[in-house]
């Protein structure tokens, strides 16, 4: 059985045509137009207010995040302060190992002392890349440290030279030996050439 859709559609169109001619439809049409126009005008009027409100909400959200981050940082600072207070007595050792000034005179005297204590004779002692007035130079500066190269030549027997190098490595002030060469001289004595560097921190440590 075929569906007689043509006659149904025709009847529906007739109904729509009749409905459009009714006063209620015409009134609704005008009402819809008025509502749309009213919405457009309301949006235009409220636009600055909506933008201001959303901007303020965004700022409040941002300030809350900033406050949280600052609270976390304050907590970290308090923790760091507690830690610093607990290690305060040990900071003097840090100054001994890595002073804030070059202090090369004191270090050279210490090297002389350990040389005489070990029984070796220093034949040459060279320091290079020394910054004037304890100011860091860009050439020797690495990670807030200023590196001063040294080259020590000494002579003595094997045990004395080993003792000298061992003591030099264990000095309170940190000295990094990059190469140590021991060779036999013409008179049968051994000569030592120790190359390395000592550092000092030029930056303010903040305590």
């Amino acid at each position, binding site marked *: 059985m075929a569906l007689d859709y043509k006659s149904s559609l025709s009847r529906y169109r007739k109904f729509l045509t009749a409905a459009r001619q009714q006063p209620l439809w015409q009134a609704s049409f005008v009402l819809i137009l008025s509502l749309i126009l009213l919405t*457009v005008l309301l949006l235009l009027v409220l636009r600055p207010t909506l933008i201001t409100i959303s901007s303020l909400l965004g700022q409040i959200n941002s300030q809350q995040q*900033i406050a949280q*981050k600052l609270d976390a940082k304050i907590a970290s*600072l308090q923790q760091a302060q507690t830690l610093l207070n607990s*290690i305060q007595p*040990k900071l003097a050792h840090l100054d001994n190992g890595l002073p804030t000034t070059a202090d090369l005179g004191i270090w050279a005297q210490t090297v002389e002392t350990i040389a005489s204590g070990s029984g070796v004779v220093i034949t040459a002692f060279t320091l290079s890349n020394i910054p004037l007035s304890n100011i860091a130079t860009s050439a020797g500066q690495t990670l807030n440290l200023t590196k001063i190269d040294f080259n020590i030549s000494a002579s003595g027997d094997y045990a004395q030279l080993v003792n000298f190098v061992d003591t030099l490595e264990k000095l*309170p002030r940190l000295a990094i030996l990059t190469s140590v060469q021991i060779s036999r001289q013409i008179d049968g004595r051994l000569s030592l050439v120790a190359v390395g560097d000592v550092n000092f921190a030029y930056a303010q440590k903040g305590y």
Partner: protein
Amino acid sequence: MRKKGIDHDLIIVLTTTLITLATWVGFEVYRAYTKVTIPEVLQKHLQPLNPTLDTKVLDRLEQRDK
């Protein structure tokens, strides 16, 4: 018939205007909400701080001094 055509066109124009306007206002509101600039000085202060310290190094330095 002509009046009905004009009414129909008027509805389409007003509706598309409303949609465009609503989209425009919505985007502007969203942009105003998300566009919050933090001053550079404050951003520097907001960088997290690591409170841990390698105290073993200090112990080793203490051993060297003894």
